[in-house]
């Protein structure tokens, strides 16, 4: 029972991290990143190969094999996803918008999947990675049963740290500028905002979160299999985001709890329906799809909608009598 509960806890917090990453990209900056799961996979792969020993004699094919300890490998996995996002963003973000960007990114996701699945010498093909060392297992003498609760708690702590950082980003002027670009990038540019640079920032920070979320997944399960990173998995993270409420980090936690934990993982632990083995699991995606449609129809803002930042929160004294008269301060013309 403890194993089941902490497995659910792990997935809830891990998808909280993944959803926060997608939220900064889509919910805040309006980047429709349909290749999101690709960045999760890159984070997972690199976290794995940074922690695995050299591939010689393991029967697996992979690069690096540096045997780095946790959380160094996890941090590098996040940075690897970020680096990959930088390459993708430099190619796509400058010229592509909305639907076209989404089409290119979903194509990229498919290419990446085929590439991993077929490039045996680099990614071990369809076998993926396995026997990835469990963090702190030797140091703390953790068994298979004690590792699950331990790592679920580690993931919870990491996700709360990342939530703290993300909250500060979203509350800061950079978050406001992301939302301005999401609402109308022509206006944002006309107000002097470098739309490409800002979208690049959102892409990078979101991909770091994707990479860390993926890294935690491979550390938890101890294996990496390309079939777990099918492009369709991106839409599970989108479901978490839409159900929870785009633009709100608390919403991301609620979405992770409702969609990933209760709808996708909890049914796997339910007793089988007699005569219909596996039937419950087959219904997972259908139920998620129905919930998504209902949410978009009846509550498109999500369970926890985006919060307005009110004037009082800026620390300005209330009462206009205390405010200075409206200063209109035209800067001097740029003349040599």
């Amino acid at each position, binding site marked *: 029972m403890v194993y089941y509960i902490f497995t659910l806890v792990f997935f809830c917090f891990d998808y909280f991290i993944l959803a926060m990453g997608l939220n900064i990209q889509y919910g805040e900056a309006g980047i429709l990143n349909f290749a999101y799961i690709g960045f999760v996979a890159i984070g997972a792969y690199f976290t794995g190969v940074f922690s695995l020993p050299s591939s010689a004699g393991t029967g697996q094919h992979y690069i690096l094999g540096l045997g780095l300890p946790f959380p160094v490998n996890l941090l590098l996995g996040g940075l690897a996803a970020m680096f990959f996002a930088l390459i993708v963003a430099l190619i796509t973000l400058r010229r592509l918008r909305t639907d076209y960007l989404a089409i290119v990114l979903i194509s990229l996701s498919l290419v990446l999947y085929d590439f991993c699945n077929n490039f045996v010498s680099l990614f071990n093909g369809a076998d993926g990675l396995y026997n990835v060392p469990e963090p702190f297992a030797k140091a703390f003498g953790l068994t298979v049963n004690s590792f699950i609760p331990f790592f679920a708690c580690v993931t919870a702590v990491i996700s709360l740290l990342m939530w703290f950082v993300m909250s500060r980003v979203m509350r800061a002027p950079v978050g406001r500028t992301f939302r301005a670009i999401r609402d109308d990038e022509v206006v944002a540019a006309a107000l002097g905002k*470098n739309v490409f640079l800002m979208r690049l920032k959102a892409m990078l920070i979101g991909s770091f979160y994707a990479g860390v979320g993926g890294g935690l997944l491979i550390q938890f399960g101890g294996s990496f299999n390309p079939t777990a990173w099918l492009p369709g998995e991106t839409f599970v993270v989108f479901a978490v985001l839409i159900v929870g409420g785009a633009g709100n980090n608390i919403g991301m936690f609620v979405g992770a709890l409702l969609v990933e934990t209760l709808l996708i993982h909890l049914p796997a632990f339910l007793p089988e329906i007699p005569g219909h083995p596996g039937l419950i699991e087959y219904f997972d995606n259908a139920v998620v799809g129905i919930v998504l449609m209902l949410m978009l129809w009846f509550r498109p803002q999500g369970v926890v909608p985006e919060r307005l930042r009110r004037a009082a929160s*800026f620390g300005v004294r209330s009462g206009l009598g205390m405010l200075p008269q409206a200063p209109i301060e035209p800067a001097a013309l740029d003349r040599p």
Partner: protein
Amino acid sequence: MLDSTTGRPERAAALRCEGITKAFQGVHAVNGASFDVPEGQITALIGPNGAGKTTVVNILSGAMRCDSGRAFIGTTEITNRPSHTIARLGLLRTFQLSRELGGLTVLENMLVAPADQAGESFVNLLLRPGLIERQEREHAERALALLDTYGLYDHRDTRARELSGGQKKLLEIARAVMASPTILLLDEPMAGVNPALIELIGGYIVDLKEHGVTVLMIEHNLNVVEKICDYVIVLAEGRTLATGRLSELRENTDVVKAYLGEVIDAGASH
């Protein structure tokens, strides 16, 4: 105001167009427009529908690339430079159809505008939170004061998409002013607003001029042009047809034929 011998504005040009052209699939929207916008004055850009006025404003503000010609802010060339670069040189604009940042509050719309915000950098976010907080408070104080001036203070916490059409027009102007412009391009600021609000917006525009802002506004309401504009540029078929005071242009047969006559006729038919 205007040089009596050349008819050109006496003041230095804050903004200059030289032979701007722009074609859409072979159709010339702008076909060699050339004009100077005098510094510290209110200039009207008038002309019949399809004359290329909005296209010129789009080109000057960097929202659109021109096919040929050059544009300058003072002596700095801005031809085909991106919008954000032009905005940072002090040229701000509003749009023909109000484009509020709908998901943000009215106050947040204002706070997006200032350039060089410390809180847009991740490094500052980590290392200089005090600076960001102080700057945010200063910006918020100035934004609230501007909202009060523009009659939007009570709506400061309202989502901008929930404002009325006239309030959105006011917000657009206030937001541009928040960015401390030296040149302001207003694309039909009076379109679709009631007469009382027209008076109000006109007053704000004159106030901006008094604070040293150069204004170029597209406007069809000739009463407004006559009342607040110092200088008028007439565009027709993508070319500069004439420039000068409106009273002088009323005597220009080309202008009357191309635009003023049309406006007078249209006015008579209503």
